């Protein structure tokens, strides 16, 4: 065991897999020499060579598009979009090919790859550096979408992602990169994709969240506890496919649901979870399930970001309303 932050944990996951599997290649803008603008791939080029860990020209579409070709020809690309706000030039390659080539070729060719990208707000960044648009990928057939909330999960989930035969959108809550430290095993281990985790058991209400907002919910829970509210907190971890079993079991127990997500609320992940609650646990719902989310606006620049970002208080506010309903 070793104390690691999320950057260390992700770095180690990639490192272990690079050691183990000669077909893995790691590339993107500034991931090689520099080791990534967040230093997530630091030292990997030094250790594994520039044929396996390398910088590309500045073009997201070709990063993803050439990864498709590599995957088809037997390599396993683990690529980085420098920020999730810069993935859009690659949208055509992702939606039209990464997500479809297996289906198109009736299973003959696949495009297993991991597309890593830091996402989310809270770091006082320039425009386009704070978005949480995971719902776009979750809605696209053929992709799986994973978001860890701790160093330990990040490592185990990323190892699963790299070993998956399906393409994985792996979104990293950049706000947590160095904010949380934790004992993490240095061995190789994996956490299955598609499994949520119950972080705290409770009886009054279920909160579903993921990524950077887990910590905010936990902060809210301290106060909720003082108010005598017992919250069951579920870390979704995989956004698609959703672990309905875990979520529904909890809702059936508590009868109440609050979903906390960072991006725009409308047509977002909250709506999906609330719909699942309706489909699978309608008669158990004792209060309207509630989504707490970003506004349907662009994330403001740093000086306005506090308005947008979900605070523990806001979560508490909604928890209280839902419990009191």
């Amino acid at each position, binding site marked *: 065991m070793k104390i690691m932050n999320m950057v260390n944990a992700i770095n180690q996951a990639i490192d272990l897999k690079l050691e183990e599997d000669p077909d893995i290649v790691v590339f993107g803008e500034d991931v090689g020499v520099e080791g990534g603008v967040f230093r997530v791939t630091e030292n990997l080029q030094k250790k594994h060579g520039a044929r396996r860990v390398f910088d590309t020209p500045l*073009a997201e579409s070709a990063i993803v*598009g*050439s990864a498709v070709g590599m995957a088809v*020809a037997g390599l396993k690309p683990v690529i980085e979009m420098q920020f999730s706000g810069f993935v859009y030039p690659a949208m055509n*390659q992702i939606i*039209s090919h990464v997500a479809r080539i297996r289906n198109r070729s*009736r299973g003959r*060719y696949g495009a297993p790859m991991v597309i890593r990208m830091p996402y989310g707000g809270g770091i006082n960044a320039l425009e386009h550096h704070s978005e949480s648009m995971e719902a776009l990928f979750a809605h696209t057939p053929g992709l799986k979408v994973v978001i860890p909330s701790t160093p330990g999960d990040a490592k185990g989930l990323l190892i699963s992602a790299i070993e998956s035969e399906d393409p994985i959108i792996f979104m990293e809550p950049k706000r947590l990169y160095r904010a949380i430290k934790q004992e993490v095993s240095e061995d190789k281990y994996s956490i299955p994709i598609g499994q949520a985790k119950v972080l705290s058991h409770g009886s009054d209400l279920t909160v579903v969240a993921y990524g950077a907002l887990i910590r905010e919910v936990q902060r809210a829970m301290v106060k909720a506890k003082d108010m005598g509210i017992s919250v069951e907190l579920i870390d979704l971890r995989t956004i698609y496919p959703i672990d309905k079993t875990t979520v529904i079991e909890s809702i059936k127990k508590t009868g109440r649901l609050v979903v906390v997500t960072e991006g725009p609320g409308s047509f977002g992940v909250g709506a999906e979870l609330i719909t699942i609650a309706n489909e699978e646990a309608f008669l158990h719902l004792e209060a309207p399930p509630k989504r707490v989310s970003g506004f349907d606006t662009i994330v403001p620049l740093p000086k306005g970001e506090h308005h947008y970002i979900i605070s523990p208080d806001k979560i508490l506010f909604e928890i209280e309303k839902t419990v009191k309903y």
Partner: protein
Amino acid sequence: MLEEFDSFKTEMFQVMDPAGNITKPEHFPKLKDKDIVGAYKKMLFARTADLMVVSYQRQGRIYTYPPNQGQEAISGAVAQIIRKDDWLVPAFRELGAWLAKGASLKEIFMYFMGFEEGSLFKNARNMLPMNVPIASQLQHATGIGYAINYKEKDEIVYTFVGDGGTSQGDFHEALNFAAVWKVPVIFIVQNNQFAISVPFKTQTASDGIAIKALAYGMPGIQVDGNDFLAMTKTFEEASEHAGSGKGPVLIEAVTYRMGAHTTSDDPSKYRTKEEEDEWAAKDPLVRLKKYLMTQKLWTDKEEETITGQYKKEIDRIFIEAEKHTDYPLEDVFKYQYADLPDDLLLQKAEHEKFLNWKASRK
């Protein structure tokens, strides 16, 4: 030859003129007479199949199809050069190249009849399915090229795109990455003068497409795409270049789509009869046939006989393809993921419940 006709030159590389005369004997490709006859037959087969599909389509027996007529020499030349392990990354208008890689006509028919199974190409090694989003396939070619270098394999990637496709950002990025990475990829632009209704002059203000190679630091060459011998010579040299670690090559094959863009298109809306006639006179099959007849390697009689055989064979295959009608519900889900989410199984099960309900109400 790549240097002699490099992209600075405005002269288009040609070995044989429209009358079938060899104008540049020094650039005659390494082909024996029987190879040329064989190539001609393949092109004739492709032409015959192509024309027949258009008429099947009119009979409502197959869906939208993009005709190749007029462009056969390009695929025909690729067919001479491409090896079993080489990769083919198609666009959607290079029938002869698909057949050369081992795609069966039956599969191709099935694809255009609306079955994904038609993309399987069971006997084709290293060939991707057709690619509809224009120019996006070029990046796959570049990536495959990277994998070839990485795995130190002796393989070359041949990839196709149209003149319209050169306007896409993906074209630019694919060629740029390819040159930086020095991958063994041959980018073949079939400049057939139109992107659906849009003429080449609306597509770009540059002096042809080969010159665009300069933007990437790779060799580029403009070739008469209706001259089978020039195309073959070009692929000989390009594959030599790419295969020896020198990186990618851009080939502009100047040609003309004699037919419609697809079977749903009406070219008379956007081009003149005169233009069509002018290009008909440069028909790549007619040209090669003239050469073969001058060389006493071919006769009208042979052509008639063999075309008859081809027609029968193609029709037989088409009818066989038509027999395939089965598309089980399962196949909608099966290939979506390697590890299928339970959700999708559930969606299938729910749909089956509906189907039972429906059946029970009949």
